[in-house]
């Protein structure tokens, strides 16, 4: 099977369309960054508190918000998690960052108290254990102290209850962190422990899945690091291409990759998706990946330049793109397949990461054909316009 054979597309003839396309997306992204959504930042960068809660039924966001308002939480944001499974019954509760590091813990504590007060429906009370939220170590200690099997205080007892707690814990984790009812634990733990749980434990109907608390100092630190990493990455690429080809190839490639980065970040702004540390990781990977396609096209341009010096540069570039088109589309397509699988099945935690890759791989492939190569031609035409000789050097030896 073959998809592309003897393609004869005049890519450079369409450069104005490409320029228009790139401009529309870049400008839309930049406008959104400046005037619309800005740069939505994950808690890693903006600081603050994020608590991710899963409920045993569809949560009422307005209800949570009202309860939080009553508890005096200001600037609270509540988002339902969609995507992946349609009904995950999860919400993300975010608080703006506190002014200093000393009160970092307060927001979380208040959120927990509010939820506990409003959702702990059946049987909550002092000295009782919330089976949906209790930690494994705490549960083990609690059981050992209650000692429903009357084993007496000893290391063996501690161990026994630690095992019971671990079993209950694994059962709970396999069900996404929520126990349906205490009766379902019958097959998991001993009858005596079950009886004790029925008497002194309850299910709050919600569980804390994830807590992130970031102080202003770390937020600023991470922002700086992310920016530096992106710049170093671009510089690294420039140096490598300079070393492998000539400076102008490096410049063209870096402009193309910068274009990809800008459009990808713009897409996050347009879609109002948050940029997190992992998204930055995805963008850096794209910088490297997008460079791959560009290098393959450049390699072919250089090889063809060596073979035919008399042909106009535009024709050589067109031919080079067409010759490598099959490879470019196939490799990008295959990587895109895996990334798409990540986007569809990888879960909500990786959503931003896979979104960046999905957008970035499409744009990266497009830009190596439509941005990097035409830039070489434009540069040469500009040089000729100023009466200087063509400077694109031929390869020293044949490459792919």
């Amino acid at each position: 099977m073959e998809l592309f054979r003897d393609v004869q597309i005049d890519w450079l003839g369409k450069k104005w369309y490409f320029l228009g396309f790139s401009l529309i997306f870049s400008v839309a992204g930049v406008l959104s960054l400046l005037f619309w959504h800005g740069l939505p930042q994950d808690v890693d960068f903006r600081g603050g508190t994020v608590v991710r809660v899963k409920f045993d039924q569809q949560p009422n966001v307005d209800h949570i918000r009202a309860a939080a308002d009553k508890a005096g939480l200001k600037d609270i944001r509540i988002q339902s998690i969609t995507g992946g499974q349609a009904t995950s019954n999860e919400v993300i509760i975010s608080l703006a960052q506190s002014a200093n590091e000393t009160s970092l813990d307060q927001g979380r504590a208040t959120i927990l108290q509010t939820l506990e007060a409003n959702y702990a429906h059946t049987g909550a009370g002092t000295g009782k254990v919330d089976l949906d939220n209790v930690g494994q170590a705490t549960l083990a200690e609690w059981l050992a102290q209650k000692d429903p099997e009357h084993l007496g205080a000893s290391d063996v007892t501690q161990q026994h209850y630690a095992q019971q707690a671990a079993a209950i814990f694994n059962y709970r984790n396999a069900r996404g962190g929520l126990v349906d009812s205490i009766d379902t634990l019958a097959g998991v733990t001993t009858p005596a422990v079950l009886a004790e749980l029925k008497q002194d434990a309850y299910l709050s109907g919600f569980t804390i899945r994830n807590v992130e608390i970031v102080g202003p100092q770390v937020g600023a630190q991470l922002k700086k690091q992310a920016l530096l990493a992106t710049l170093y990455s671009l510089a690294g690429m420039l140096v490598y291409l300079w070393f492998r080809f000539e400076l102008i190839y490096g410049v063209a490639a870096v402009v193309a990759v910068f274009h990809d980065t800008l459009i990808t970040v713009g897409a996050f702004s347009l879609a109002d998706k948050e940029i997190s540390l992992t998204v930055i990781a995805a963008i850096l990977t794209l910088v490297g990946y997008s460079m791959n396609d560009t290098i393959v096209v450049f390699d072919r341009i250089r090889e063809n330049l060596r073979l035919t010096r008399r042909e106009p540069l535009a024709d050589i570039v067109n031919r080079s793109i067409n010759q490598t088109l099959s490879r470019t589309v196939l490799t990008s397509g295959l990587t895109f397949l895996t990334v798409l699988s990540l986007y569809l099945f990888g879960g909500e935690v990786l959503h931003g990461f896979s979104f960046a890759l999905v957008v970035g791989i499409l744009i990266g492939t497009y830009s190596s054909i439509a941005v990097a190569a035409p830039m070489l031609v434009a540069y040469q035409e500009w040089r000729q316009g100023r009466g200087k000789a063509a400077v694109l050097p031929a390869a020293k030896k044949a490459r792919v």
Partner: protein
Amino acid sequence: MRKNLTQKTILIFAVLIVFIFGIFGIPKGVSGTALKQSILDRIHLGLDLKGGTHLILQVMTDEAVNFAATNDAAHIQTDLQQNGITVGSVVPDSAHPETIVIAGAPADRAGDIRTVLSQHYGNQYDISSGANNTFTLAMKPSAIADLKKSTMDHSIEVIRQRVDSLGVSEPVIQEYNLGSDQILVELPGVDDPARVKDVIQSTARLEIHEVQGGPWPDEQAALQALGATVPYDSILLHTAPGASAPGSGNQVYQIKRAAEVAGTDIRDAQANRNQNTNEPEVVFYLTTAAGNHFADFTAANKGKSLCIVLDNKIQEVATIRDQIRDTGTISGGGINEQQAKDLSMLLRTGALPASIHYLQESTVGPSLGADSIRQGVLASVVGMLAVMIFMLIYYRGSGINADLALFLNLVILLGFMGYTGSVLTLPGIAGVILTIGMGVDSNVLIFERIREELRAGKSPAAAVDQGFGHAWTTIIDTHVTTIVSAAILFIFGTGPVRGFAVTLTFGLLANLFTAVFVSRVIFDSHLNKKQRGEALSI
């Protein structure tokens, strides 16, 4: 021309076996759970998959500098007195705590003062004299840097001991290089961080000071007794709730500003029972230097009181009964056994050289981690199958070749993880998926080139040869660019992101072997079996 591939085939199988061992070790059984357990023993999961708490702490190293300057100020005064020089005051500058100002120095002894200062403090301080008979000692930048460094090392050590005493398995406690004076703490399996955080932070700085006056019921009474001002070399401190001191409730003592024993001076401490009275007591051991100083002090001050100060609260007031050299006991105040145990624990590990603030906390509940693993594995399997099926359809017979190489690539990647003890994180799983997608790029490059050569009329053997030869440089290029990105990520990233950089790099390195070497061997062995002139399935 037939090629002898025996050696290469043996090499490939050897690599396969070595890396399968890297993944599983020696399996404890062949059942699903036993294999799963074997994998988990070899490949460590990150906090985002296993569940746990990640903390970033700020060590207030400036405090350590202030404390050092305060203590040095007291020592300077003592040293000057021993040389028969009495000065007005020796105090750290309130605006620049790393600077000590000596005021009211006798003008005729200026030379002697300079000699004493440069003899004892010349290594640590830049000494200058100013107008109105003052001397200024500014701590040298190198001395400050050393002090901060040792404060960090010591803090990490103390936190490690405390976390160990809580029974957390495989904690990570190390300097966090993204910020200055920060510590990264990773506590796998801790889903209830409040407890651990309390233990890490609850005790900050522990010192022993001389008690100069008190107790009084409150500060007003203290000030009244002292005639409205507190002498410059002493401070007023409150007792902690439940402190074992004469009297009851919240009381105020006047204590000497400079500590006789700083937290860092204590080498070890144990809870004991007094052999004569059978009362609980705490035995502590000082470092040699601190022991010498403390011996002089306690010999000269028998009958006076010492107090143990924790977090600027007086925990205990006790009377000096014997000279204390490098070891001594704290009893008195009728401390009970539990208090003795706690106190000894605090003395042993609790003496953080500076206080600690929390900058960041991230806790991943185990249920979220379990979901992440499930979803990550599902996405990997789906992605890999999609790629493999596409390769089979598009390249037919040669697709099998690519799929085998891809499979081996995955085995080597996971085996690498097992051998190096690298941590697999959720982005790390994404890195595995990306490796599959990018790894197959190399195969596509080679196959496309082979097709091109075949189209140009070359024989299958020659086409394979040319295809591999020409694609090589491009493969190197593509790998270098991606690995450069991954390396930068590894340098700048933390935790989960690092895991991504690791799997991506390992995966692409393994890909060089599988897509180029292994795939070539498979092609050659296939060509060996073919009749001359028979077409290649590609």
